[in-house]
């Protein structure tokens, strides 16, 4: 079977599968606590996403610089210290943006310093990794994190309290249970399933596309 079409198709659509299907948040379940417990309102989503932007980006840069020089156990300490320091500064920025965020996000605002995606990716960064690739990967992780947080938060805030960013909006039914962690797990599971569905469809379309081209080419070939 000629797979060149599939390869080309996947190369064209590389960003989406990487964002959705190959993402550590959606596939490996890292950062679940923030999504499951923390993502109960749009304010929380924005606060966590801003923190993630700074923490992840700076920690990955530091990890790239120290990766060839330190052993893994030394890197664990170094990256944790860096992410904690960045968290302190990013928290101040978040407090400037949303002054009452500590009432909503609570300790999760501080726990972002130890978020699983950052620590996992920073500590297991390859010594041969190139900076542009590291940065692109980090940005994709941040975008997926922000998107996931926003989707989960909007659904839970709208269904749970009938508001968006604290502003009342018309709603069909207010369901307090939606803000409970169990519903966060359910929503997260559905998002993961959606990611897998999109990935499967992309691959499926590529295969169908390829088969169609092959059959057309075979039909157009002169007989004998």
């Amino acid at each position, binding site marked *: 079977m000629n797979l060149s079409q599939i390869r080309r198709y996947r190369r064209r659509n590389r960003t989406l599968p990487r964002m959705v299907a190959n993402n550590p948040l959606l596939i490996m379940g890292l950062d679940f606590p923030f999504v499951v417990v923390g993502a109960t309102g749009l304010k929380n989503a924005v606060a966590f996403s801003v923190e993630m932007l700074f923490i992840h980006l700076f920690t990955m840069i530091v990890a790239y610089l120290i990766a060839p020089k330190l052993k893994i156990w030394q890197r664990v300490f170094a990256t944790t210290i860096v992410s904690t320091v960045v968290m302190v500064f990013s928290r101040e920025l978040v407090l400037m943006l949303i002054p009452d965020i500590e009432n909503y996000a609570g300790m999760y605002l501080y726990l972002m310093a130890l978020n699983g995606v950052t620590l996992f990716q920073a500590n297991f960064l390859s010594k041969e990794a190139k900076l542009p690739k590291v940065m692109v990967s980090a940005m994709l992780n941040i975008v997926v994190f922000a998107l996931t947080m926003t989707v989960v938060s909007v659904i839970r805030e709208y269904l749970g309290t009938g508001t968006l960013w604290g502003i009342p909006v018309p709603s*069909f039914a207010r*369901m307090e249970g*939606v803000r409970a962690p169990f519903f966060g797990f359910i929503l997260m*599971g559905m998002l993961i399933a959606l990611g897998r569905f999109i990935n499967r469809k992309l691959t499926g379309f590529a295969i169908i596309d390829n088969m169609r081209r092959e059959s057309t080419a075979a039909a157009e070939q002169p007989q004998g």
Partner: protein
Amino acid sequence: MQLKKSNPPYITHGDSTRSMMFNVILVLLMLYGMAIFFYGPRALVLGGVGAFSAVMTEWLINFLFRRIKPKIHDLSPWVTGLLIPLMLPATVPFRVPVVAAIFGISVAKLPFGGTGHNVFNPAAAGYAFAVTSFSSDIIFRYPQPLTMIPVWNTSGVSLYPGASFSMSIGGVPGTGIVYTALGNTPGPMGATHILVLLAGLVFLMSRRTIRWQIPVSFLATTTLIGFIFRRIPVTRLYSAAYENMTGLLLFGAIFMLGDPVTTPKRSWAKVAYAVVTAIIVMVFRHVGKVQESFTFALLLMNATVWGFDMGLEHIAKLVRRRKYESVADTKVS
């Protein structure tokens, strides 16, 4: 012996899944008849809303994901949709059974593969979601029986706490044991008709829609626990009777605990499963804060069904092996 690979429910007699579901619907319609007698036509409208929501959710999700051909004649979503309103008060807003049915079908049933594959009972999951989502004033306050409730505006209807609440605070239900047995007491609109429920249980067991091991072991255990550990200041016999007749215990034992898809396969596993479920239900009743804890205990136990199946299968293998070894020893000697 030819082995066939198939999905549960595993039926070894002349019935089909459809006929089993039809039997359950027959009993549920009897309960709806009682609910209409006690509360007026609103009970029927609630049932229709619940059933319609469940069927449409199942059809829509199957249609969207094209996993299996959408089938309206599959009666299992009808059962789920009819069960949910019967666990709620007759004054409940229409949005509650709608949300519960949608949750039960779209979260507890279809993601696991649909009919025959679900790990959790969809009706129990939907009800549990409604309990956690809506305020207890909506879910746990009931109208007085023989009150004609308007279909649309229920704001003028007086609501009272149910017998479960009285028992949870150590009080004896005010209506007495005879009225409680006749269903003439505030409670979920389908779960208070004890005599009808018992008739339904006998019917379903005689039709082999539910196996006798589960409800009998379950009710025997709850009776025993109610007899030994009293929550209310009455005689031991009355305590056991009240425990079985209040709340969703009997209703759940018939329609949700006996669900053939979410129960173990072997007879002894069914007995063990029912006994452990009964113990957990009674523990929740004694120490829990939620009035109707049956569904939570059931969902907890639904997750352990595979363990009962595996454990009892292992024991059965050991017993078989011992038997063969003893026969072989006898032949050698």
